[in-house]
């Protein structure tokens, strides 16, 4: 079965880079331009991994993660934060919100692939 990923970033360049990287890995990729849009894309359906930015208009990444994690279907869904922020406070906030892990930009496709394989069996 094709594995599904949801990529959330307000930068179209980042979204495309991440999506293409995952598509090369055989993922079917959905994209969201911010948290609210991503929730709409998701619409309660299952995905194998979610990769999200934090700083986004309309709905930021933390709020988005809280929303997703509170849905029973996403209780165990891996959610990776891909961001330039790496401060310890933010990381703890992310953890509290329910994020699985943290990837600090600059974005390196091969690193993303490695991390994604660690959370998607």
């Amino acid at each position: 079965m094709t594995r599904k990923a949801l990529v959330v970033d307000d930068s179209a360049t980042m979204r495309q880079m991440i999506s293409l990287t995952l598509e090369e890995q055989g993922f079917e990729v959905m994209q969201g331009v911010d948290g609210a849009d991503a929730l709409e894309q998701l619409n309660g359906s299952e995905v194998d991994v979610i990769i999200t930015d934090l700083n986004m208009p309309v709905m930021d990444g933390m709020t988005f993660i809280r929303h997703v994690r509170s849905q029973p279907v996403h209780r165990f869904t891996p959610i990776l934060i891909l961001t330039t922020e790496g401060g310890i406070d933010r990381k703890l906030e992310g953890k509290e919100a329910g994020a699985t892990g943290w990837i600090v930009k600059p974005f390196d496709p091969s690193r993303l692939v490695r991390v994604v394989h660690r959370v998607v069996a």
Partner: protein
Amino acid sequence: MPIDVSQFRGMFFEEARDYVAAFEQAVLQLEKDPSDKASVQEMFRAAHSLKGCSSTLGVNDVAAFTHVLENLLDHMRERSVAVSAELIELLLASSDMLGDLLQRAREGQEPPPGMEPLVHKLAAHVRVQDDAPAEVSHGEDQGTLRGDGRMALEIRCEPNLLTEGLDPLPLLRELYEVAEVESLEADVSRVPDLDALEPERCYLAWSGVVDLEDGPEAVREIFEFVEDTCHVTLAPIEAKAPAASSADETAEALIQKSAGLDRTAGEKATLRVATERIDEMINLVGELVIAQASLAQTAGGLEADEAIAESIERMGRRLRELQQCALSVRTIPLSTVFFRFPRLVRDLAAELGKQVQLEVVGGETELDKGVIEGLAGPLTHLVRNAMDHGLETPEAREAAGKPATGSIQLAARQEHGSVVIELSDDGRGLDTQRILEKARAAGLVGPNETVGSDRLHAMIFEPGFSTAASVSDVSGRGVGMDAARSAIEDLSGTLHVRSEPGRGTTVCVTLPLTLAILDGFALMVGRQTYVVPLLSVLEVVKPAREDFSTVLDRGELVSVRGDVMRLVRMRDVLGHPPALDDAEGLIVVVEVQGERFGLLVDDLEGQTNVVIKGLDESVKTSPAILGGSIQGDGSIAFILDLAGVVRVHLALRRTPALATPESESPSGI
């Protein structure tokens, strides 16, 4: 194989422009309202996204600059930093610098010399605001990971890792790939009794001995992304001095690595298609539409059965959809031109000593890319003109009982297949008396001729026409307004002015949605079909003999419901033999450069869509003809350039030898 990120450079540069525009807009917003936290957030987001992308793509100068900029913005976000004029200038300079850096990076050039001083200024501003040390870098327990060779490994995870979406098993498996695992055992000491056991929690920890030939980095990297959930300690069994390395160096190395990517490597991800190819496609689709129309016509003549007629009709609908779709490839939002105006207005206001509030509406309205590119120049000029000549100084405004701050509105909207852009100011309005004096002096208006205010207003677009008492740097010396008009007309657009003394001026620019297809009005002159832009046609009337007249100064005139205008005999202009009876023809009222003309034509064919084709110089014999178009029945219709028609008309009047005397005698008098 992971992808090569350099292919995204082109897309990044496109996107980066939007970020810089958003940044600049936010700075201007902050200047207006220094308490507006949202604009600081907006700036931060723009800088942040630029930094993220540029560092990934190895656009290092931009990455380095946005890093410093982001620091300052972060400070502004976190603390209440006073928004001084100096800070605004600094941010605007940063916005300009970003634009410049991106441009240079795109062309593979070195950063400008101004970058270093600006970076220092930005950094200094942060220091002034804050004497506290910079934030603590992450990963402080890395010291425990130093060393190599045989090591004692311990992995302790937080029990809630499962509901954080993490399954530890793949990580442990990967451990076996990067290290020689001598032993690894699960520590079950924290597993509670069955009745206290929560199935969604993980109570296990792991410990063992690993041999790390390639150093601890490989192990550390596996757990790095979850370092706050899984705590990994590696203790050297045969202790060695830790090597100097840090997470920052890792990041550094990554930047170095991506910087090594070929700068000029193809920019493939954005689908970039040469405009000519899109135009060719649009052209072909247009011809397909025409071919379908011709097929429908033929089928109608054959009284073909209903099923065929119906499928031809269906095909027509799909084709029109296809045409819309093809055309939309060329459209972009007007905001791509509008974004420059807040800054322009701000800088000009400072230069002119005026207070101005700019309102921009309808930036999402889409237009053909070609039209948009051609708009920047004329719109800029119109805005400059409104600032310079339209708006008064704060003192003059107050003296006139108006608020000291003038307002300029730039509003776009779509209206019946065209786009209307209105530029309004609440300034002093046009001085019609001065314009009339000037026009008389320039010989544009006869000494005893009376002129309506519409035509007077339109005169500000005449070449060399400027009523400003003093000539300023800002809007030049009367070149410009006419250049603005001809630029708009080159885009098949029209320009109108409304003005009320003391209340302000509105310049209204109407543009076709696309340049490739003309919404036209087909008319017959001789036996030939001609098409004029529908935008220019005001009305069509059947004239009576008594409507025609001749006035010494202005030549032949025609009256359309009491409105007297110049008569243009299209047969003369287009080189057809004159008609026997003027009253047999029709008058098409058009507006050209602000003046109404009555075109005398033989007949009408009505509204039509034509695909414009450029004509060979050998076929394009008259300045009145803009291009050609193939019609449903395969014949050619000529598209008229109305400004050209008027020019030919005026030239014929000056050399009456070219006109036939009989046809020149007005019928009604």
